[in-house]
């Protein structure tokens, strides 16, 4: 779903203008002026000028009235409306101005066949109306399922569930959409987007935090506040979680990070059983005492959550009645977020943006994108994170790919393995919109430029999804040579962004580096332009550094010098290869000089005791050689310990040194020593044919390990360590030998079947087969049968392996095999998994049963061996 891109396309097709005002007019871009705000008082609440008192718990009251555990309380709106209204009325009498509908779990997933979403919302809104409440807040809780990629619920399905609720709430006449008790920032974002895109009611959004001050998924109050404020909710805050005293630091953190009203609904402490009844430990009086501190900390919309009752609300009422909130002075933050990390720039802080996930000039990444080798990309993400990148650029721009789909998929997967906020990098606004929509947090969009059409296409996406954006100083006339002209474009971008409601803290200007070899006179102009943008526009700046050295020898030296100069000129966020030691040195030392590394603590920790490494080898620092560069540039200073990993014990080393390289290689593999296997193969390559090394040495060693495993002499980790040790051996051969000599031994697909999420077994099999030299297309877990068929067909595969853990998911296996037989009858299927037996395998229609990973390797040898013979 791409509401912004589609709206712009519609306007363009009709020959209408499509600037900010036109999009607001068309309803595609939210606009505070068009919000349906019930009355003047509520408008003042949203402006932070009045308090708003909500109600307390509904569930606690219903359980007190005998609701069984596991029952759907929402159905009571239909079956017992008087009782529900009576609870609402008790809150109104205690002083609640806004009363929350009894619809917390009223989504299609949870209601199932019990009731329709719209009828529950209609009845629930009527219950609140009947209580005489001034405002009806339509309550929306979590879906009850965890979103991909950690869970299995797709973002779009979550969105659809929420959208149905929002439409039902608006149709029933609610005044406020209240999204609450969220622990997953991405699920919250799905709900907020559903609210923004399906009604024009004010949206209040609150999350729930644990004792460690984070949600279950690791989101801090500051991250939540920054992200939700950027998404444009009318109020944000915290509910449930803990007692009011424990919420104070959370409210403070949120109030400091967002200027909109802050909402709090605390629990009455923890539940306890006393004489068979659940009681909560915090009394109404102490609740109000602690709530006073929350209000002082900036909360202006207050109520109660689990364990609170009208008695608590009347205490709160006494606090806020006839009082006005003190205006808050919130300093705008410059920063971006992921679900569990915020990168915030203060003063002269700098942040590093990792550039490695961009196929331009990177052969292996291109190959990985084309073949869907996601793990290669994830390893780039993890590697850059470990090398100290703060933000990662993600670009999937290859002409033969569906860029929007690939970018969307990558965003989710990369976010599941790194906490770094991402920078979504594409020249296609549709791909950008698709990716930022499913991004958990506040990302950077890379990029917009000074061309009118581009500004009109990109900025509304940035605004709607609450992003920051990089503005490139180029326009219809190209990149201008002088600082003044670059500045003029930057100024135009900032002004236009502001017309969309994007604050200048969220616009980062890129003054565009030119190569010193070709545009030497421009280099100092770029530095000057950075300073002008920072000083006159008050914006942060980014720069892709390494272009400057293009065409020069020892590029890393030039790059590091330029980076230092750019820092001095005011650069905030260099885009670079964080694996490069020289870059890291420049960044780490600048952070001391600019005061970001307080007391030089990090620098001393990292560099004390190091000696300067000799100048780097003359290999090019970027472009095609980038991959190799990344591998060899491990933490620069660990000078003493060799890059080849842990040294073996002295006696072993001697024994191996004396042995001939062939038995040495065998020994490395059988004993699972990764580091030495590569060296052994290198030695052997001088005397043997590459194919000989594979067929006569590597494979027999692996077979020996397989036998040991089968006999029980080895157990699983030993089998895996051996396979792992063989891999660098294969890699060395592949690098050295012509492609045809080392073509893969065969290609196959692996999948954990639909309905099953346990993939450890499948991963073990994949690892083993890859290290035996097979090409494995890993389709992941919970895989749709059609996706397996599609892969088999696209890649022309002869073999598929399916895994299932539980009896119940064996059905998913059967269904997949049935579909394969139907659509790709030539393919052979082997199956495995905890509950599988040879009989089961036969029953579901598989060709082979593999009882463990070692057997699947044997099986592949058999299948592909036979094929060779044909």
């Amino acid at each position: 779903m791409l509401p912004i891109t589609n709206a712009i396309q519609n306007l363009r097709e009709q020959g209408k203008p499509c600037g900010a005002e036109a999009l607001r007019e068309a309803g595609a871009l939210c606009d505070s002026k068009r919000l349906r705000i019930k009355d003047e008082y509520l408008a003042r609440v949203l402006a932070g000028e009045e308090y708003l008192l909500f109600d307390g718990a509904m569930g606690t009251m219903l359980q007190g009235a005998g609701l069984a555990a596991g029952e759907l309380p929402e159905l009571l709106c239909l079956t017992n409306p008087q009782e529900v209204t009576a609870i609402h009325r008790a809150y109104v009498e205690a002083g609640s101005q806004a009363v929350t509908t009894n619809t917390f779990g009223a989504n299609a997933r949870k209601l199932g066949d019990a009731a329709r979403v719209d009828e529950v919302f209609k009845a629930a809104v009527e219950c609140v109306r009947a209580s005489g409440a001034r405002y009806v807040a339509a309550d929306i809780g979590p879906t009850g399922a965890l979103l991909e990629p950690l869970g299995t619920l797709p973002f779009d399905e979550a969105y659809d569930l929420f959208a149905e609720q929002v439409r039902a709430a608006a149709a029933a006449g609610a005044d406020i959409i209240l999204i609450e008790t969220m622990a997953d920032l991405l699920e919250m974002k799905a709900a907020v987007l559903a609210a923004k895109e399906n009604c024009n009611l004010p949206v209040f959004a609150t999350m729930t935090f644990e004792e460690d001050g984070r949600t279950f998924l690791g989101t801090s109050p500051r991250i939540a506040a920054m992200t939700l404020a950027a998404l444009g909710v009318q109020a944000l805050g915290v509910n449930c979680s803990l007692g009011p005293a424990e919420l104070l630091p959370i409210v403070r953190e949120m109030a400091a990070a967002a200027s909109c009203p802050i909402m709090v609904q605390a629990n009455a402490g923890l539940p306890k059983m006393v004489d068979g009844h659940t009681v909560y430990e915090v009394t109404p009086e102490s609740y109000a005492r602690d709530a006073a501190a929350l209000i002082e900390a900036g909360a202006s919309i207050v109520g109660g959550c689990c364990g609170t009752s009208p008695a608590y609300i009347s205490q709160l009422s006494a606090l806020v009645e006839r009082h006005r909130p003190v205006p808050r002075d919130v300093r705008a933050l410059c920063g971006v977020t992921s679900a569990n990390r915020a990168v915030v720039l203060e003063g002269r802080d700098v942040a590093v943006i990792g550039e490695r996930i961009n196929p331009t000039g990177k052969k292996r990444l291109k190959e990985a994108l084309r073949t869907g080798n996601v793990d290669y990309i994830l390893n780039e993400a993890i590697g850059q994170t470990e090398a100290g990148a703060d933000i990662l650029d993600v670009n999937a721009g290859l002409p033969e790919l569906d860029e929007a789909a690939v970018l969307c998929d990558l965003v989710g997967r990369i976010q599941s393995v790194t906490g770094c906020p991402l920078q979504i990098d594409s020249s296609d606004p549709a791909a950008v919109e698709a990716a930022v929509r499913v991004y958990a947090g506040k990302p950077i969009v890379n990029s917009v430029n000074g061309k009118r059409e581009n500004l009109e296409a990109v900025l509304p996406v940035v605004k709607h999804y609450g992003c920051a954006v990089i503005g490139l100083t180029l326009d219809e006339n190209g990149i201008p040579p002088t600082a003044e002209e670059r500045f003029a474009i930057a100024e135009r971008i900032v002004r236009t962004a502001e017309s969309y409601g994007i604050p200048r803290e969220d616009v980062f200007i890129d003054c565009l580096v030119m190569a010193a070899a070709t545009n030497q006179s421009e280099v100092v102009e770029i530095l000057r332009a950075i300073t002008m943008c920072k000083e006159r526009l008050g914006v942060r700046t980014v720069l892709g550094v390494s272009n400057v050295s293009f065409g020069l020898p020892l590029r890393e030296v030039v790059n590091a010098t330029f980076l230092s100069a750019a820092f001095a000129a005011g650069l905030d966020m260099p885009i670079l290869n964080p694996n490069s030691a020289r870059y890291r040195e420049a960044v780490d030392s600048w952070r001391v000089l600019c005061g970001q590394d307080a007391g030089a603590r990090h620098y001393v920790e990292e560099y004390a005791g190091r000696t300067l490494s000799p100048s780097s080898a003359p290999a090019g620092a970027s472009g095609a050689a980038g991959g190799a560069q990344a591998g060899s540039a491990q933490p620069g200073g660990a000078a003493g310990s060799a890059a080849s990993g842990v040294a073996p014990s002295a006696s072993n080393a001697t024994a191996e040194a004396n042995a001939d390289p062939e038995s040495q290689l065998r020994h490395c593999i059988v004993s699972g020593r990764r580091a030495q296997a590569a060296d052994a193969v290198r030695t052997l390559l001088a005397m043997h044919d590459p194919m000989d090394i594979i067929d006569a040495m590597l494979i027999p060693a692996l077979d020996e390990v397989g036998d040991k495993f089968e006999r029980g002499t080895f157990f699983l980790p030993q089998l895996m360590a051996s396979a792992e040790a063989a891999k660098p051996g294969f890699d060395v051969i592949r690098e050295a030998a012509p492609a045809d000599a080392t073509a893969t031994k065969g290609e196959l697909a692996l999948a954990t079947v639909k309905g099953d999420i346990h993939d450890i077994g499948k991963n073990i099999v994949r690892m083993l087969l890859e290290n035996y030299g097979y090409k494995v297309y890993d389709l992941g877990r919970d895989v749709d049968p059609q996706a397996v068929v599609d892969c088999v067909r696209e890649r022309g595969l002869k073999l598929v392996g399916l895994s299932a853990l539980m009896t119940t998911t064996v059905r998913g296996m059967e269904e997949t095999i049935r579909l394969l037989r139907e659509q790709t009858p030539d393919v052979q299927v082997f199956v495995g998994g905890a509950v599988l037996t040879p009989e089961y395998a036969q029953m579901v229609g598989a060709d082979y049963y593999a009882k463990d990973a070692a057997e699947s390797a044997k099986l592949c040898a058999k299948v592909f061996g036979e094929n060779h013979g044909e």
Partner: protein
Amino acid sequence: MLEEHSASGPAQPVAATKDASGESREVENGTQRALNGAGRLSEAAVAVEGAKVDRGEMLRYLGHAGQEIAPELAARIDGAVELCERTSAPRFSWRTFPVRRGYDDQGKPVLKLEGSTLELPGADISAHLEGATECVVLACTLGLSNEREARRLAAVDATTAALFSAAGSALVETVADMCSADALAAAKERGLTAGSRFSPGYGDLPLSVQPHIVRILGADRRIGMTPTQGGFVVPAKSVTAFMGLFEGPRAAVDRRSCVACPARERCMLRKMGTPCYR
């Protein structure tokens, strides 16, 4: 500049909260004990501190049956154990319901847990709870920080991922033991004894019961456990189970065994005489 909840998760499990009197609760066997009065409910969620991976158990999951472990592998195992303990934030929650025998919509015999919507079908759970007056419903998990680290390892290092997974399986068993002990202690105060745990997926008790357990315990909100369409739960390193409570002393008849295990036919551990239970 950075705030981080890294893949490695919180360094320590969540700090103990304080009870109404403002004093920390007693700590016994590493479990933060819930003071339950009548003992029908754990705290909303109990955060477990100091739970350790049982290496013997972990190695059994990996199929270890006495093979010699070289120092290199031993070091990797140590690393995986340490990583698992560091990235886990174990929590558990349990509730007790009276057991009643009845029939479902189709007239088949089921066990009903009074005060909840839960009905337990099948002969095996019925036999397991034979004679029980009440049933503890429990859920335990290592948390999403452990799950996230598992995803990261799956991308970078399959061997460590396998070791980490086995460590997690062992650790969540330990947490389940702590949870059982917590429920048992509360039952003892009322003169009851407890049987062993029985989980959905054992014998003929369907996995589809699991989402209902999440719902009646509020385990999504309380301990961060969510069901999937297939009847599994996320985080993967979680345990849900039923444990019978009995009046009077209980003979040690239902010590753990392979009888109800779905893997018994092909289990290597069983064949080697080193079953997975202790």
